[in-house]
């Protein structure tokens, strides 16, 4: 593998990891709980911004870019802070957006919030440095590990992989827990869940905030790698790419979401990079968006459950212990034992 390819390949791997994390967070909200969060990318962006300013260090007078709360925190802290800010912002937005609204109105609120956020961030130069965004964000542990550029790339692939594993473990724990079960109940039948004593609003809020934390982490991991942040990179269309990824991979299936992250933002969108530059600039970008839209439509028509559909969960009453259990046919024991 030549150096250029190694460089490219490692970059794509980091993108894959970042997209996988983002898809897990969105899947928790959309797939499991049924919240159409069209503002998802805003929480990714917020996490990224937080991580950026917490590694850039305090702003000096001669600084060429504007930002707030500059700090110089050691490695894992900016990423954790990114997650915390993503979660806090989600809580704030959730208070506004998660009221008892029809699901289409709710989607509308989130879409509008996404648009407002982009407008405000682009125009408020003092706070977020306007459309220029932030650049020269230092790479984490760069001075500590002291590696060559290409080895640092592979090192960061490792860091991303570890964070992916932690997030995956965390998400799986949630979706397999009673909370995950309640989330699916809220998604499938809100009134029934409420009738069984589930606090629907609180469950939605929890899914929303946890999703926001994961979104923040994914943004933070990305920004530390590419060393730059700008509001133009996090428009509402990016949320749509993640939605398409989940629809293609498999809604309410964590492995499916990861597969979707591989198929849509990475393979599908990266492959156009290798097309010969035809037509005018911007043509391929526009065609790419057409293709993403068409991909979502095609999957919703032919495979609405995605490549890896949600596992059907059948809840059996546990077999009573004692003499009655012994009388059960042997196959029943196998089916409960094999879980």
């Amino acid at each position: 593998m030549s150096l250029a390819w190694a460089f490219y390949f490692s970059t794509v791997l980091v993108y894959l990891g970042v997209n996988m994390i983002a898809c897990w967070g969105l899947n928790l909200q959309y797939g499991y709980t049924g919240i159409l969060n069209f503002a998802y990318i805003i929480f990714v962006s917020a996490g990224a911004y937080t991580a950026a300013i917490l590694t850039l260090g305090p702003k000096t007078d001669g600084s060429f870019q504007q930002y707030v709360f500059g700090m110089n925190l050691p490695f894992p802290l900016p990423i954790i802070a990114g997650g915390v800010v993503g979660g806090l912002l989600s809580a704030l937005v959730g208070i506004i957006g998660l009221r008892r609204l029809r699901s289409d109105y709710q989607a509308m609120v989130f879409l509008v919030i996404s648009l407002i956020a982009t407008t405000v961030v682009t125009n408020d130069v003092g706070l977020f440095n306007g459309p220029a965004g932030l650049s020269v964000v230092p790479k984490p542990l760069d001075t500590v590990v002291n590696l060559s550029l290409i080895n640092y790339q592979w090192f960061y692939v490792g860091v991303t992989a570890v964070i992916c594993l932690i997030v995956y473990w965390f998400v799986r724990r949630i979706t397999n827990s009673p909370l995950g079960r309640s989330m699916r109940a809220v998604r499938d039948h809100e009134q029934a869940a409420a009738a069984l004593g589930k606090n629907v609003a609180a469950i939605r809020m929890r899914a929303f905030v946890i999703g926001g934390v994961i979104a923040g982490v994914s943004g933070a991991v990305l920004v530390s790698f590419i060393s730059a942040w700008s509001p133009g990179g996090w428009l509402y269309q990016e949320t749509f790419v993640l939605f398409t990824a989940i629809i293609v991979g498999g809604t309410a299936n964590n492995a499916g979401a990861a597969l979707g992250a591989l198929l849509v933002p990475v393979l599908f969108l990266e492959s156009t990079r290798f097309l010969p530059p035809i037509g005018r600039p911007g043509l391929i970008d526009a065609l790419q968006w057409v293709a993403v839209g068409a991909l979502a439509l095609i999957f919703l028509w032919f495979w609405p459950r995605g490549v890896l559909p949600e596992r059907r969960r059948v809840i059996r009453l546990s077999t009573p212990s004692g003499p009655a259990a012994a009388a059960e046919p042997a196959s029943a024991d196998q089916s409960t034992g094999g879980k």
Partner: protein
Amino acid sequence: MFMQALGFGIITASILAIGAVGFTTQFGVTNILNLAYGDVMTASAFTAYVANAAGLNPWWGLVCGAIFGALFSFLLNRVVYTPYIRRGSKLFVMIIITISISLIVQNLLQVIWGPQFYSIHVDPGRTVHVLGMVFTTSQLYIIMIAGLALVALHSLLRFTRIGKAMRATASDAELARNCGIGTRRVIDLAWLMSGLLCGVAGVALVMELGSFQSTTGGAFLVPIIAAAVLGGVGQIYGAMLGGLIIGVTTELAAVFINPQYKDVVAFGMLIVVLLLRPQGILSEVASQKEVAA
């Protein structure tokens, strides 16, 4: 200063009112939140541009744009939305479908026309002073078109059988069907009318703005939705009133706060309305309805 801003507000409000009434007619009847509406507006504007470039008067271009909008919306429903609903897509999934269509239309326009700006040349005519507000003749035409379109729609809904059928379908599609109303035809008509108004709004918008590109209509969608929701979904008069309120407020905000925050004001109002009165200012309750096809 204030009167001039109010003048701008009235022009924006007329375009918004046309768009919002078209949006709400379709949304009220079918319950599909058509996020591709703004992009159909842009497509209609490009149709008018082509007609104008072919030598037609811009106002005939507006007619061409309106017809294109009507046919496009009709086909969009017949070819895409209805089949998905028949296949069992819920309200939830329909939003993702309309947003996909929006992306596809917008980017196809960009593929065809590129990212640059176009303009339909309209002779502004003499300027007219009304109570300290200054309008050009073409702006007065736009306001008049808005007035006429809304009166025509009002008459259709109030005084004709098909209008009555449409109102019945909007309030309860199933009950209407059980009473022998051909809801399919009503829904087709709703899409045609909505598309017609969408086309008019799109062309009027780009005439007023002076220049446009493939994203212009999409950017105008949120104020339209804001006006429609403010008025109460499916409420024609509400949408007119909503258009007026949003139009005037955003233009006043542009003058007195910051032109960049014009949209933020519209967005903010939409959110506030959704939180305080999701059923709109003039409306019955927007209940938990499913999509109708």
